[in-house]
Structures are given as C-alpha cells and as structure tokens.
C-alpha cells in the first residue's frame, strides 16, 4: 500500500498538470495561409485592395451563363441554337430567345445572383469604409471618395435590375438584423431610388478622364448611367424624360474628354484601352483580370486553328441572318461578324470540320453562313455568323485581354439624338449626331430620322453591347415576331415578358419577394 500511495502522490499532480497546463490543453487556432479580421485592412494598400472586390464582381459580364448572356440571347441580334447533341442545356437558351423565360431557369437565377451580388458588395464596402472612417482607422478623404464611387456603382447595378427584373427589393444598408428579408418594391420605386442616388453621388465623383478613373466610376460614367435611365424612363415609369436624357448626354459631349474614333474597331481591339470613345469598360486582362470568354462562347471547335487559341471554343453564340443582312456590304460594322470559309492561322489551309452534317450545304470546310436552318433541336454546327466585334488575338487564352465596353461615346451621341428627335421630330442636331456615327462607318448620311432608321442604326452600331433588348422594348418591337420569315423562331411575346421572372430559388429563400406578372 505504501507503493500505491507513492504512485498516487505522483499521479495526481501529473493529472493536474495535464489538465491545467496551457500547452497540454491549448486549442487556439493559428492560420498561416489566410487573412482574417485581425490581420487584414491594416494599411492603405490593403484598403484599396478591399475596394477591388466591388469592381472585380463586374468580371462576370464577359462570360457565358448570366446577365449579359440573357440580355443578348433574348434580343434579335444573338441566339444560341441547339446544335444536335450540343447546347440543349435544359432548354434555358431556347426559352430566353423565345421570351419563354422560366423562373427556374439557371440563367435567370445566375443573372439575379450577379446583380444582387454586385449590390451587396457595394453595400458591404460602404459599411466597412464608413465604420473604419468613424473609428479613425481610415483616411477620411479617401473613404468618402470610395463611398461615393460605390454608391454610383450600386446605382449601375440597380439600373440593370430596374431594366431586367423591374420589381426588386431595395437593399442599401448592411447592418441589417439577422433574418432580414427585404420586400419587393415597384419598378417606379426602384427608378426613383436610382435617380435620387445618382443625383446625390455623381457630383462627388472625379471628372478626370484618364488612367486614374479608367474602368472605375467617374463623373461622366455617372452621367452615362443617368442618360440610360432617362432614355428608357417611359418604359420604366410611363413618363418620358427626353430632356433629362438629352441634358445628361450633353454634359458628356461638352466635357470634350471623349471623341468618336476614326476606326470603329479602335474600341474593340485587344489594346482598346486607349480608345477615346470608351466611357466605361471592364479592363480585362488575360493574366490579371480574367473572365472575358467571347472567343470560346461563339467560335466553332475548329476555329481553334484559325486563331491558334489555347483552348477549344464551344460553338454556341451566333447572330441571326436578318440582323446580319441589315448591314450594307460596305458598312465597316459588318466586320462585327465572323462570316464565310475559315482557314487556319496561316490563312491558306482550310479548316476542315470532321463533324459536318451530311445535310450541310457548304461541305466540310468550316464556313460560317448567315442562314441557320432551325432554332432547335438540330441546327447545323456551322450555321450562323459569329460575334467578331472584339479582336481575337492569335494565341489567345480562354481569357481575352480586350477591355469589355459597357458605355461608349457613340451611344451617347445617338441617345441624345433620339431624345432630341422625341422633343422635336425635325431637330437638325439629332440628325447630325446620328450622321456622325453613319459617316464613321462609311455609310451615306440620313436625310431625316424615323423610328425605324433609329432602331436599325442603333442595332448596327451597338451590336453585342448589351442594349438591344431595351432598345427593342423602347421602340415597341420586342414583343413582335423577330423578322417574320422562315427563320423567325421568336413567334412574338406578351408585354409581361419584357421583365424576367423572379427566380424560384430566390422566392424560396425570401418569401417577401413578389413574382412578376405573367409568370
């Protein structure tokens, strides 16, 4: 028993040590390869890097599957036909083109997530910068500048939401209570919010047009958003705002900071950042800012040889025959399309398509022809001219380096023209502004403006710049059968289809959302 007692004497303190000694029980986690609240946002450099998250959320614009894709495919300038076994993808792209949007379609939910993701990032950063500023941890001038920028960027996202989903919740705060489920606001309320927000924040922005504002929210980017808002005000609210639109455009024009480039494609080449015509672009880069996948989205599998692409394209997006044929053969802008027989990068060797259908009239050499035999299910794989507006640099990766244009000066000219024409059908300035765009494309000047001439010219000038859908709506052509000949698969749609359905997935999460009429 003596031994037992001795053992107990030794064991008890040992157990005591095991229980209370820190290194035996310490479970504090040390993270070596990630940043946390304790280690991030310490310097101005880190402060700037936080702002970046708001802009990098725009990088989703240039790839397949969400907001931009649905904007384009639901218009008469772009479609994704089902090519046999390819591109069925649950019917969502056929639905979009026929305006038979379904609330459960993934592309609709992706669009919502993209737009509200952008809104939320802006809200978060406004909140974080304000908090840091209030706590004296951030330079107040820099914080205020960033907060104004973020308010305008949020305004841009809400303008897009206003344009597509129409009736959406307005979320502007970040420190909301747990379980916060914002309710749907009317399109009028959303419009009013965007208008007042831009009126308040745009005057705070930098008027410089150079590298310090490139790709970011500046004073004139704010004016361009206002111009768009007022251009479509009648669609959004029932009340036209032509004078306000014309005024916003005029500020941009009178700034003298922008000009129409002699070459239409100066705004779309790989190194288009020097274009004096770009007001806002996503400054994509194949290394630093990836996500512009247009070559993959539109080109044929065999086009890899034409452009020495690093990855094989997906053979999806193409334009419609009638839209293509709306262009004069001498119109500079006809090169917005990739058309005709295709050759390897040496320019001599024909690209042979091993998957050519026996009923393809052009034979095995890859040949992009305007005619598309059918919308689905068995469109020919080579059918349809492709989107060639942006330069595809030889040897490009899947991520192009061309900057992706959101607002462009010639659109501002034509928007002012349209507004002035509405105010006065005989406006000489309106005619002159449109003719600036015509002349640049080596097209004869118009003698007078009509709605048809305006919508057609806008179509040619603004192809694949994400405005065709709203232009068609504004000119009352969106619900009409596209073109109306044998290839017109869009049979016409009800006015309710001008808005997209609120995604099922979002209504499931937030019962305070109200589905749009007609869905």
């Amino acid at each position, binding site marked *: 028993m003596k031994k*037992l007692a001795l053992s107990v004497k030794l064991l008890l303190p040992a157990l005591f040590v095991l229980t209370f000694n820190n290194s035996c029980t310490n479970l*504090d986690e040390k993270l070596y390869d990630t*940043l946390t609240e304790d280690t991030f946002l310490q310097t101005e450099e880190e402060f700037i890097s936080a702002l970046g998250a708001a802009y990098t959320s725009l990088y989703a614009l240039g790839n397949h599957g969400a907001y931009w894709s649905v904007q384009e495919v639901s218009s008469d300038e772009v479609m994704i036909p089902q090519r046999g076994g390819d591109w069925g993808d649950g019917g969502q792209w056929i639905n979009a083109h026929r305006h038979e949007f379904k609330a459960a379609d993934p592309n609709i939910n992706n669009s919502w997530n993209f737009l509200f993701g952008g809104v939320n990032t802006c809200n978060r950063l406004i909140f974080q910068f304000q908090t840091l500023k209030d706590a004296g941890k951030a330079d107040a001038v820099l914080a205020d500048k960033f907060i104004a920028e973020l308010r305008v960027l949020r305004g841009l996202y809400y303008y897009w939401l206003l344009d597509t989903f129409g009736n959406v919740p307005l979320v502007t705060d970040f420190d909301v209570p747990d379980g916060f489920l914002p309710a749907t606001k009317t399109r009028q309320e959303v419009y009013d919010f965007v208008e007042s927000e831009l009126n308040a924040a745009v005057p705070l922005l930098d008027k410089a047009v150079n590298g310090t504002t490139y790709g970011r929210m500046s004073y004139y980017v704010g004016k361009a958003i206002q111009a768009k808002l007022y251009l479509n005000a009648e669609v959004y609210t029932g009340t036209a705002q032509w004078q306000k639109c014309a005024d916003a455009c005029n500020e941009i024009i009178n700034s003298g900071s922008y000009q129409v480039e002699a070459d239409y494609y100066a705004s779309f080449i790989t190194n288009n950042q020097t274009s004096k015509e770009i007001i806002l672009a996503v400054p994509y880069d194949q290394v630093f800012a990836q996500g512009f996948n247009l070559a993959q989205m539109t080109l044929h*599998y065999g086009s890899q040889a034409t452009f020495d692409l690093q990855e094989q394209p997906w053979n999806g997006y193409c334009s419609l025959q009638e839209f293509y044929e709306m262009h004069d053969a001498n119109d500079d802008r006809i090169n917005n399309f990739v058309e005709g027989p295709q050759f390897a990068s040496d320019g001599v060797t024909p690209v042979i398509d*091993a998957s050519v259908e026996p*009923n393809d009239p052009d034979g095995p050499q890859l040949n992009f022809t305007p005619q598309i035999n059918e919308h689905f299910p068995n469109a020919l794989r080579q059918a349809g001219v492709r989107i060639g507006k942006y330069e595809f640099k030889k040897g490009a*990766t899947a991520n192009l380096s061309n900057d992706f244009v959101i607002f462009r000066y010639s659109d501002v000219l034509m928007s002012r023209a349209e507004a002035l024409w509405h105010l006065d059908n005989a406006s000489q300035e309106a005619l002159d502004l449109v003719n600036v765009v015509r002349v640049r494309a080596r097209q004869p000047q118009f003698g007078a403006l009509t709605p048809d001439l305006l919508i057609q010219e806008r179509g040619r000038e603004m192809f694949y710049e994400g405005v065709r859908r709203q232009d068609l709506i504004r000119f009352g052509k969106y619900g009409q059968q596209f073109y109306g000949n044998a290839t017109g698969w869009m049979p016409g749609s009800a006015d309710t289809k001008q808005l997209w359905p609120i995604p099922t997935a979002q209504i499931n999460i937030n019962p305070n959302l109200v589905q749009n009429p007609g869905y």
Partner: protein
Amino acid sequence: MKFLHTLSKCGFLVAALLLMGNVAWSQRTVKGKATDADSGEGLIGATVAVVGTTRGAVTDIDGNYSVDVPEGATQLRFSYTGYTEQVIDLGASNVVNVAMKPGTVLDEVVVIGYGTLKSREVTSSIVSLKSEDFNKGNVTNPAQLIQGKIAGVSISRPGSDPNGDFTIRLRGLSSIQSGTSPLVVVDGVPGVSLNLVDPNDIASIDVLKDGSSAAIYGTRASSGVILITTKKGVAGTTRAEYNGFVAFDQVAKRYNVLSADDFIAAGGTDLSPNDNTSTDWFNEITQTGVSNVHNLSLSGGVGKGSFRASFNYRDNSGILRTTGLKQYNGSLSFTQKVLNDRLRIDGNLFLTSRESEYGFLEAFRYAIVNNPTAGVKSTDAEYTRFGGYVEKDLFDYFNPVAMIEQNYNRGNINRMLGNVRATLDLTSNWNVSMNLSQERSANNGSEFYSKQSKFRGFGRNGVGIRSVDNSTTNLLELQTEYKLNLGGNSDLRFLGGYAYQDFQYNGFRADAGNILTNVLENNNLRAFQELPRGLATVTSYRNENKLIAYFGRALLNTDDTYFGQVGLRREGSTRFGANNRWGLFPWVSAGVNIEKLTDIPGVDQLKFRVGYGVTGNQPNQNGLSVLQFAPGASFYYNGNYVPSYGPSQNANPDLKWEQKGEFDAGIDFNLMDYKIGGSIDFYNRKTNDLILNFPVPVPPNLAATTWQNIASFESTGLEAVVNFNNLVNNDNFQWTPGLLFSTYKVKLTDLGRADTIASANVGAPGQNDVYYTILYNGAPLGQLWGPKRESVNADGTITYQDLDGNGTVDINTFNADQTKIGSGIPAFELSMVNSFTMGNWDLNFLLRGVFGHDLANEYRVFYENLDPTAATWNKVDTKYYDPTLTASNRFDDAHVEKATFLRLDNATLGYNFNLGSGTWFNKARLYVSGQNLFTITGYTGVDPEARLEDPGSVDNGGRTATPNPLNIGIDRRSTYFLARTISVGVNLGF
C-alpha cells in the same frame, strides 16, 4: 518543435512513473506447455494469463510458455482460438502443462479502443477478422482483405484502378463535408492512412461498428473505426516466411460499340473515306495487367524480447495501359521486457514508398466513343501538329492512344510511421503506459502534357505540373489501467487517459505551359514560357490543427454473465469556434449471457447486448470558424492592376462538433454444439449538427457562405450473420459456410433549408443544367430524379409523361414533369463465405450480392444514339438501343437501370504440401486465386457496384472535383473499367 515542447511538459510524469519501476516485489516464474488434447501437438500462440492481474504470456511455436506470477496470484487462464478456455489453480509446482480441447470459439481476443476484450465480454457491435479469414488474391489495399466479410461495411471501388482508393461506408453515410470514411487505427495509433501497412503484415482487423464501441475515439469515429493489428514476432524459434504471387488482370466487361462498317451503315461520318480503316479503340488502350508481389518476413526473439521484420515489394499493372504502381514497404516491430518484466516496450516502424502511374482514366471514355473509321496514327501532314496521332477538331473528342502515349501523370508517395509504447506495471493489477508516434507523408505529383497532345497539351504548347503535399502527425497518449477483482470471475476494470495529436500540412503546386521542346518534360519548370508571361499557376499552403482529449472507461464483468461498460471522452479541436471547441462523447453498453442463467436445450451461448454512444466528426479543413479574406482577381487602379481582397467566409464562433447518437441492440448466439453461430444487430443513428458551407444572406453577412452546423440525417439498419461451423465434417472433407446480410435506410431529416435543390449536373456536351438527383428536407438519400418517357414517336422524337397533369410537358423543371426514377442506395447486401478443406486441399470463396439499387448509366445518357445531325462519335450498343429514336440524347428514366448483382468476388484453391522432417520448410502452400470471376446482373454498364459518391461531370480535358457523398447512384464516364484477376501464389515457411 512545438510538439516537443508539449511533450517535455506533459511527459515528465511518465518519467516520474518510470522511476517507480525500481521498486520490485516478490514473484516466481511458471513454465509449461500447451498442447492439443487430441493430437498432443504443441499449440503456438495460445494465451496464458495470470488471473486477477494484467500479466500474461503467449506460447511459442512448440507450445512452451513462461510467465512471471506475482505473489498472491492463484490461477492461470489458458485460452486459444477454437479451444475451450481452461483455468488452472496454481500449486507449489512451477511447471503447469495443459492439454486443450477443441470447442468454443468464444474466447477470441477482440481488439477494442485502448485495449482488448474476450469475445464473450463484448457488449457492442464489433467484428473481428483474423488473417485466415481475409480475402486472398491480388490484394493491394487492406480494405480488400475484408470486402464483403463484415455485415454493414460497404467497401467498393467501381472499376479496377490499381491506384484507386476504396470507398468505405460503415452503416451508410454519417457526414457530408467532414470525414465519411472510418478512422483507421494501426497498433493503437489513430488516424493512420490505410495505405501505410502492407496487407501481408496484418494479423487482424477489428471493426467498431456502433456508437458505444467507437465513442472512445470520440472525434472522427462517426463513420466507425477500423483497428489494424500487425503481425508480431514470438519469442522462441526464429521463423522466416516468404509469400509471393503473380497476378493477371484482364478486362472483365466492355461496352459493345459499332464496328467501322456498321458505324458507316448507321450514318456515321467516315473519317477515312479513302481506305477501310477500322480501329478497335478499346483494344488499343487495354492490356493484360501483370502484377508481381513478394513478401519476406523474419520473426523471432530471445529471452524477453521478440521482433518481426518484413519487406514487401509490389509491382502492379492495370488493364489500362500506363496505369500501375510499384511499392516498397518495410516494417519492423519489437517487444522488450525490462525491469523484472515490469516494463514492456513495444516499437513499430513502417516505411512505404509507392511510385504510381496514375495514367489517364479518360482514355476509357474516349476509347468507347472514338470514331472507329479513324486510324490511330497517320503520316498525313494534317496530323503533324499532333505528333502523327489522328486527332480531329471536335469538342470533347480525343485520340485515347495519343492521350496515354504522349503524356504522363505520376506520383510518388512516401509514408513513415514510427511508434513506441511503454507499459509499466505499478502493481500486479495497475499499469500505466505511454504511446508516442509520428506519421509523415510526402506526396509528389508529376504531370506532363506534350506540345502535340490535343488532350491538355496542344493549346498551351506543352504543360508541366509538379506538386508536393507534406503532412506530419504527432501523437502522445498516456493511459492507466486498474483492475479490481470482485472475486471469482468477476472484475471491474478502469481505464483513464490523455491524448494529444497535432497535424501539420504544407504543400506547393506549379502548373506551367508553353515550352520549347518536349525533351525537357517537366524537369525544368523555368523553361516554360507561361511563367514569365504570368499565365502559369503556382500555389502553396500551410496549416495545422490539434486534437486534445481525456477519456475514461469502466468495464464490469460479473461472473461472465452480466457485462457492462460506461465511458466518456472529452475532446477538443482547434477546428471549431472559440465558444465550442470541446465536445463530450459518452457511451454506455450492457450485455447478458443468457446461457449462464438458464439451460436452453441446443443453445450453447446466447447473449443479448444493447448500447448507446455519441461520436463526433470534425470538418476536413482548418480556419472555418473565423472571417477570412481571400485574394480575388486583380483590378485596375490608377493605371496598374492591384490585388483585390474580399471576404471568402464568415465567422462562426459557435461552430461545433458534428454529433452522432447511435443505439444498437444485438444478439450473439451459438447453437447445436457450436455448429451454428452468429449475431443480429439492429441500429438507429441520428446525426445532428452536420457541418456544411451554407449560403447565407448578404447582408447582413459579409460573405455569401458560412460554415454552419445545420443538417441532420437519420438512418436505421439491420445486420445479420450466421456461420455453420463444419456443416459437413467427414474425415477428409469439411465445409464451413457463412452468410452475411445487411440493410439500411438514410433520410435527410433536415437539409438546413426549406427549398429543393437539383443536384449532380449531367454535363457537356448538351446536358449542362440537367440534373440526376434531388435533395430536400425529409428526402431519402439516393433518389434519381428526371422525366419519364411516354412513347417514342414515328418521327424519332420522344413524348414525355405529363406528370403534373397541367396539359403541357416541361421536362426541365424538377417540380413540373420530373419524378423519382430510381434509387442509388441498395435495398440490402448479402454475402456468402465458404471454406472447404479436403485432405491437403483447401478452397475458399466469397459470393457477394448487392440488391435493389439503380444506376444512371452515363455512357447511355450521352452515347445511346448516334448524334442526330453529324455522327462523329460512336455509340454504345446495349439491349436498350432503339434505332427508331433519333432525338438528341437527354437523361430520363430509360437510362436508369436496376443494378442488382451477384458476384464471385474471390475464390482461392490451395494445396498444402506434406513436409517430412528434415526438409528446409515447415510450411509450403501453393494456391490459385481468382477475383471477379463472374457477375450475374442485368445492368448493361461495366460495373453494377453501387456508386456511393459522385465525382461530378467532367469534359474536354477538365478535372474531376472532390466526390460528393450526397449524389448517389450515378455511373459516370470517368470510371475505370472492371478487371477479372487470376493469381498464382506460394506461401513458404522456414
């Protein structure tokens, strides 16, 4: 070094305890021999225990033993597998011989967590398999040893990839994003890789199936525990053993595809219109895989020490050309007793080096669909850019021969486990022990894609990839055991312990393209132009985590009649939120041997047992409970691209253990003079607080997801085993068959969200955003979901059923015209084990059946019909092919097939040579073994094995993701094909 620091602080008490070893007490040594009562031969490996103490010994090859008996001890207990236990009173003599009679199988030693029990004392669901019960044949992974032999443990590896790992599911699924595989414990070291130990070195495998048995491992034990005990040396005679075999793998089944002529006749595109090229692509990429395995071991010992050393060499080749592995494995174990036998030191060292040729499993898929009219190679100038291999600019279309010949995907994994355990007897019934171990692994990956390889290489002008993943795990465990004699055969045993384990990981990966010449392969990454151009990808990581636990257990045995066990483990992990790092894992179980209470005719043993235990599970990653900021893309700021950082995950200081509470009730029985034995188990397990990276609203959250304890499962199941010992028993013919049955159901009681999620994207080409499965609260796991065909129309299109009866058919919306079209989880599994002996011959075989599950056959989903517009791909030709159908392929109920199967998993025929005295050998056995000899099934795919997780869709040279265990029943195109294996081997003892 931190570990050493901890060790120095925590370990001093052990040193203090060791000091006490200097105190000796009076004792004597008893020697003797254990023999078979019938034959008089010595019994090797019989256990001799000093009753009422923790002392004991094991008999040597001749049956001799020597045991130190402390003062006061009065009895020795002799036990041996298959023989009746005997307890002999000690007299004055120091020699005790015992003749043992064959009889009960009750007294096998069962390994439990932190100790052992006799099988009669077990009160929870534990299965113990000895090496003689293991599957034979071409076994590379220890999981194969027990496949089909334990009711409730599903071990599957669709296909026969020599480098493929087995999916082990114990009683269904117990987690989603945390560990879904059982905890592996090797010789008392928890958390060890199953690949560390060579199958040849394993003496026994014990599986802790239920909560009450596994809870002592608390954390990580929710998916069960596999305890591996390696072979040890026996003091006495030195022995050497050689085991070797050569195995031949052949393709067990392939898909029928159209020949070149049939393909053209069916409207396929002829890619060689000027000649009659006809290529059997599948033949071009497959081979007879030849494997060689050699194992040499040496064991023995002198005096108070014993050792075993073993060396293993494996050279395996798969049925897909360029797949295989070479593995070198060495292990060393020793036991030494010192300090008058009061201190016992055991040590183990395992070293494994595996060189793998992973190859490219995609080759199977492209061999099935590649155009039979295309040649393999051509001298046409058109193909110079592809190195002379015939490739076409088609989407998701590759020459599979080029794929495997131009490129490589290799790995080299080195693993080491060293462990030392010291056990000190403080008194005759009280001991303390310390267990120290370190496991290290280094995994080097190496891939190269030729400049001319259309698969991954051509577009980037050659690609080189190198990667290193290192891990180090340190373990310190201290424990003490005390045994309180309650008189007779009754006792109470206590165990207390402390465990510290840390895990350190770091790694590095570089992926670069664009190189001047293939000659350099991936040996000089600097030569790749993507590096200076900023297009290469280089990543690295470093993280560590810790587990700390205290545990205690009390075991009661009342006269071998009533048994009880109660215990608690308190464990903490760095991976949880600051508020919830520690979890409590209690358990309790009890059993009663009815035959001790009442005499039932024909019943030799009947035990009822019941147990309940709580086990935990921790997430697979670190840092999940804190707000993290991660680098995003760069953004353009004042003329430069600068990095952007955003929140990647929200904080959750309340993140805590996943908890599983499991109730198990069972019966163990032996009837008719031990002729019939078996057990039945029923269980119900509720898994709560499952950790998911779950979408949360922004605002108020910074990031869109938070790791949360959110979902829950419930599963119930039944397992039954019955063995017929020597059902036929003539002088020279014995047959012992056994049957195993198991069934379970899993329900997602709470998914953490109210909505329904379509899951498992079918994929490209043409079926993105089409899904195989569906998940919602209350859903049974494993539902396949899709539209149902009404009819195939005259124009070749399909009319689908209007399931919601709304007059329009919408097959693309899950709640419109889609419904349940199959279930991926089997209704039940049934195995039959058989053991025959006839003179010198022995025959063992295992028939394994899995019943009632469905599989979505993805080859049919994509390649049932030729493409309606341009048939450049071949098609699979099954009994379901309908030539009138010309619509594009789209997943529906026609692609879901019943996959019930019965398979002769394993059969081994052996001959034991009679060895006269004076021969060199004391054992010589020759055998031939077959695996997957036949499969009876109606399934048209290559392997009807249940798919319990889903690697997801992949196309055009992409890479598969981490498998998702919620998506069940999908036979993807990325599966390795099944092999039939014949091996011939020899076992020699010297």
